[in-house]
């Protein structure tokens, strides 16, 4: 398997420049109390395409710009779908946009999940919290090309049942015979009938559904969750070079110019956000990089 990051696609779209193009919000949906999904329509005639795992820089007038991963299907990329958690000024402004409002878009930027390399293998997707959003395009891709992959397993952990993203879709996926979906929460009220425990505790349950040596794992969530998940995958025999993680840092240019997102020798915006785990494992435990 190729150990290097999935190549950065050539700048080829009108949205991939230094200045944003303005997309119109056509739909907004509440996912959890602080997380919303926006559907964005490009100006008429503007093409847009992306690879699962890539992100856009979203700009709100007078507030600022943030990187947000694309969470819709790559085979049906317009309107562009973003799931956003309100944790700062810009993300709060984004989730408050209404249909008809304009939002500046630059992108797509960054590397993508290694879906070609994963063909013919078991694919284990491990998501924590809002980390399911950047992984959803990968899931859409796997299900859209289901015959090209062996087992597909999704392990998803969230803080509480209220924080689970895409509830309806999770239920639909759970009902499919060609994938395994295991969900857990860190804190469950007594009425919660599902699993309670961190996402790594799902591996024992998932064990029968994948062959570690023939598995590609895609992991996204808080960094600490990704570290422990990677260790658990390694302990179970998933080859290190088959593990991919998606990292987040503050970004400015999104294109490898400003150095704002520097992570050791890497730029998250250009060399990532999706990285092969061996490339970043040593950096993920350093205190200051």
């Amino acid at each position: 398997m190729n150990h290097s990051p999935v190549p950065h696609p050539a700048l080829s779209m009108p949205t991939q420049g230094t200045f944003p193009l303005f997309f119109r919000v056509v739909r907004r949906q509440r996912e959890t109390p602080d997380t919303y999904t926006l559907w964005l329509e490009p100006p008429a005639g503007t093409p847009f395409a992306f690879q699962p795992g890539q992100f856009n820089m979203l700009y709100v007038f007078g507030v600022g710009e943030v990187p947000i991963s694309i969470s819709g299907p790559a085979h049906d990329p317009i309107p562009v779908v973003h799931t956003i958690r309100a944790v700062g000024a810009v993300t709060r402004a984004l989730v408050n946009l209404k249909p008809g409002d304009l939002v500046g878009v630059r992108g797509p930027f960054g590397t993508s999940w290694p879906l070609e390399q994963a063909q013919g293998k078991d694919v284990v997707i491990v998501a924590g919290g809002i980390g399911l959003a950047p992984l959803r395009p990968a899931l859409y891709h796997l299900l859209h090309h289901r015959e090209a992959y062996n087992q597909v397993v999704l392990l998803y952990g969230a803080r509480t049942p209220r924080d689970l993203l895409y509830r309806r879709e999770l239920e639909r996926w759970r009902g499919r015979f060609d994938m395994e979906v295991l969900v857990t929460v860190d804190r469950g009220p007594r009425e919660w009938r599902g699993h309670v425990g961190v996402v790594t505790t799902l591996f024992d349950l998932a064990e029968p559904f994948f062959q570690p040596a023939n598995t590609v794992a895609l992991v996204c969530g808080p960094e600490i969750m990704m570290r422990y998940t990677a260790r658990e995958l390694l302990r179970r025999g998933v080859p290190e070079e088959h593990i991919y993680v998606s990292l987040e840092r503050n970004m400015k240019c999104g294109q490898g110019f400003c150095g704002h997102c520097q992570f050791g020798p890497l730029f998250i915006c250009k060399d990532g956000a999706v990285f092969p785990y061996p490339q970043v494992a040593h950096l993920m435990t350093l205190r200051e990089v």
Partner: protein
Amino acid sequence: MARPTEDERRIFELLRRHPFTRALPENHLQRLASIASVCQLQPGDYLLREGRPVDAFYLLLSGRVGVEVYQPDRGVIPLQTLSRGDAVGWSWALPPYRATFDIRVLEPTEAICLPASELRQLMHDDPVLAVSILKKLLSMVASRIQATRLQLLDMYHRENP
């Protein structure tokens, strides 16, 4: 040694496949099988109650149980779910052999039940068996502690500042 009964042979097979015991050598599995039984548990049954003596060590074969604690102002707080392949608790191995949490059955569950005092006696009589079981128990305790620490970190709280 007496010939194993039909039940013992079945339990031996279950022990050989269970993640907690599958690495044990055959003679140890046979000894465990000789004291074990398979029990069927119904939702609402308690395997352990906080503060009460622990009379068995359970290895789950199917179904689900919850580790819970009761707090007067908050009611029952679910802490963790255990399911197929999990082992339930370690209080049976540590004096005073009393449960530190409630373990409540959440859905129909099948488990191998190893009576605590007989298990301790087997381990007392066979230090090699004792070491194997304690090693496995230690690794289980370690992974539960790690999971609990991650839970305590509340890692999803403000994940994308």
